[in-house]
């Protein structure tokens, strides 16, 4: 088996994962990059036969994703991708089940299914295409849009505070929480691989540019001259350092993170917060999540948190095996004729 799989996947290339459908996103849409990185990384990370891969989505521009992957795919209804994926995974736990979803799809109408999937630790991989806007419906603010955003449905600015997706995932106790950016292709590939390797609900927030309705939402994180000062790349076991020449670092006062200057010799790497993505406690992930809400803090990308605990699907299968052992494989005859019966002759 193992071998067969090896052999089978070894031969695959990015092309093998490209379907015959022409891609219909707007020219310049960040979704193209995400699709490309997924197709590039899949030959490496998919340890099951290709036919065991399933892509599930809801509704939105991002949710068109499954059509472009030459795997089994299900373009569901709005907001239901995580629970549709749950059904697929529970019915056949050997499948590798991936969800492509948008900030409206996952966090607005789909919020409940999302937090319950995280809570139950269903072994599905969720890629959130976060463009902070409703794309397919042509530009209304979303639950991740910044407060005060002027859109078609908020001509005077929205009065909503946005969700902090990694914070919400942390609050739902997701076992894998990470972030990347469409234009950071290498990093994105890295994160997709990590997601692929995780067992349990894996949540990857991907900042994605909607160049039609929310262009430049993440430009300071992607423009050559601003990104180094605004993006903090998290690396396991390493102190948190960023800036063009790595001249800035993150220091923790209590649990309040602060940016410190490493150039004037006042602080050194030893003073900095060392990243440990495998920490049991969700607190680190919570702190990292607050960065984007704190003026002056860089935006962390990378794995915020990865912990391992038995998945729901695993638990379900084990319980079935357990009961089969304990009671013996079920026999219909026994059930029907069980209980209080009597004869009529």
């Amino acid at each position, binding site marked *: 088996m193992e071998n067969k799989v090896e052999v089978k996947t070894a031969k695959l290339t990015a092309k093998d994962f490209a379907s015959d459908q022409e891609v219909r996103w707007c020219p310049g849409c960040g979704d193209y990059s995400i699709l490309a990185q997924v197709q590039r990384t899949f030959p490496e990370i998919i340890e099951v036969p290709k036919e065991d891969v399933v892509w599930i989505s809801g509704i939105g521009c991002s949710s068109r994703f499954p059509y472009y992957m030459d795997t089994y795919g299900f*373009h569901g209804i709005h907001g*239901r991708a995580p629970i549709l994926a749950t059904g697929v995974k*529970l019915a056949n736990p*050997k499948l590798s089940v991936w969800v492509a979803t948008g900030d409206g799809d996952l966090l607005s109408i789909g919020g*409940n299914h999302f937090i319950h999937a995280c809570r139950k630790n269903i072994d599905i991989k969720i890629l959130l295409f976060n463009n902070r806007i409703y794309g397919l419906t042509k530009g209304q603010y979303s639950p991740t849009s910044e407060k005060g955003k002027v859109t078609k449905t908020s001509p005077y600015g929205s009065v909503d505070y946005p969700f902090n997706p990694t914070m919400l995932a942390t609050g739902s106790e997701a076992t894998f929480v990470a972030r990347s950016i469409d234009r950071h292709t290498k990093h994105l590939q890295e994160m997709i691989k990590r997601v692929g390797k995780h067992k349990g609900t894996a949540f990857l927030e991907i900042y994605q540019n909607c160049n039609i309705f929310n262009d430049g939402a993440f430009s300071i994180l992607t423009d050559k001259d601003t990104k180094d000062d605004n993006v903090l790349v998290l690396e396991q076991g390493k102190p948190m350092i960023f800036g063009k020449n790595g001249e800035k670092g993150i220091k923790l006062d209590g649990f309040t993170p602060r940016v410190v200057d490493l150039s004037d010799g006042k602080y050194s790497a030893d003073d900095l917060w060392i990243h440990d993505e495998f920490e049991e406690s969700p607190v680190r992930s919570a702190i990292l999540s607050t960065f984007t809400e704190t003026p002056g803090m860089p935006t962390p990308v990378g794995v915020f948190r990865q912990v391992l605990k038995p998945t729901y699907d695993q638990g379900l299968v084990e319980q079935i095996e357990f009961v*089969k052992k304990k009671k013996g494989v079920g026999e219909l005859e026994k*059930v029907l004729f069980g209980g209080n019966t009597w*004869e*009529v002759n």
Partner: protein
Amino acid sequence: MAKEKEMQQLSEVTVRFAGDSGDGMQLTGSQFSETTAFVGNDINTLPDYPAEIRAPAGTIYGVSGFQLHFSSEGIHTPGDQPDVLVAMNPAALKKNLTEIKKNGIIIVNTDAFDAKNLKLAHYDSNPLEDGTLEGYIVFGVPISKLTENALEGTSLSMKEIARTKNFFALGLMYWLYNRPIQNTIDWIQEKFKKNPEFIEANTKALNAGFNYGEMTEAFTTRYDVVPAKLPKGTYRNISGNEATAYGFLAASVQSGLPLYLGSYPITPATDILQYLSNFKNFGVKTFQAEDEIAGVVSAIGAAFAGSLALTTTSGPGLALKTEAIGLAVMTELPLVIVNVQRGGPSTGLPTKTEQADLLQAIYGRNGEAPVAVLAAKTPRDCFYMAIEASRIALKYMTPVILLTDGYIANGTEPWRIPSVDSLPKIDVKFRTEKEGFYPYLRDEFLARPWAVPGTPDLEHRIGGLEKANIYGSVNYDPDNHNKMIHLRAEKIKNIENDIPELEVDGDQQGELLVLGWGGTYGAIKEAVIKSRAMGMKVSQAHFQYLNPFPKNTGEVLKRFKKVLIPEINLGQLAKLIKSEYLIDVVQFNVIRGLPFRVSDIIEKIKETLGGKNGK
């Protein structure tokens, strides 16, 4: 020394046990049922408990009741008016008295008729003394006291002793209706095997009740109901919900597909989820979802992945599932949705029965979204309709809605258990050949192929957008849409060629056909039989298939001058019949959260036949 009591033969009896939610009336009723079934009577039961979990003792709304109807003939309802009421307290008497037959028997626990309880029951004076019960045969029995005496010297607390008094009442009823107590003794021993003192106490109370009947002067007569002539075989009592669960378990076994149930608890459908969660050793996967939408959507995912996919709910839950059912229609996946109907609209009367979800089941989705709709007619019929719903879903690759209702879901009747090999096989072929595979290329039944993830070389994508005929890719072409809309409708319509014709019970043509559907079968049948016995020319036909209707329906209807349609709704089947066959019908709609009274239907039949009732 008590003198010999006379034994009077009866052909049928209806008994209602009533008391506090805490008095164990459901248990007493079901024990009496088991024993009565065991001695060979035909029997039909109707539990009736309050919406509150444990309403305060003594209150009227806290009264819990259990009615059962047994006979030496075949019967089909829990009975209209009880012949006997066992009332454990004033509230139970107050709530039920009006429904008891004139000259009926009333057994009351006189100990419970103290000032406090009388007040709680809103009695200004004691009904046992103020003539309220005139015209009834009343037996005042100090049940509490007698139970205490019987349990003299046990280690039990007064509270625990009080809790055994229902066994005293049960014993007394066993004596009065000449039933053996052994069944219940066995049950007690099984149930309380962990605490012997309960075994002893309950058994003592049971015997005390039985002996009390024998000893006291008060009871001069006993009654007996001889066994009914039922077809030979092995029997068990079964409720509709239990039968439904077993039906899907059987469908799973017969189709060789693992059963997946995605469900969210809701009265009165929760039992099905509870029963099926016990069958893990059949590989049954029960998923208690976060809500109804999650229940059905996860089931759709499971169907995509190759399971026999099921979701169970009641009215409000079905309302929530409608958008997702539309997705199953568009993706043409096999899915069974069970809706145990309850009183509506909205939260309505959660613990009561109704038939008002028929039109929701047929039309309650956006766009033209046809699904097959079936309905079970009795508790045991739920078993067979569950298998049938699964068969149709799998053969036609379509969602199927199976309607039951609170009455048949909780009511019980004896079931002649079928042998497993007498059950229909359901053969399912997953698509595996790559050659000529197109996701929407239909077979002779217009069903599309079922190619499940994990099948090499058949990778494909489906979804809720309109599909290209044959190829299944997203397609916005106007003519393709028109074509697909018609194909989906035709597929469902064609099922009419694959289901039994509508049968007429009684004269095959004539004055009046009483036409029903689902859970009203028993009441209508009994009413029609009795009407015929009274010389009226009336026949019965009953739908288990609501969409599509059996092929011969129009032809059957034409054979009768009048069609009477009794429904526990405002005339939903009547609407369908009228638009489909353009015939006028007489409606009979009583929406009280309860099954029909046989007598009411008989009255309506009389009225409808008018002068010429055939004689």
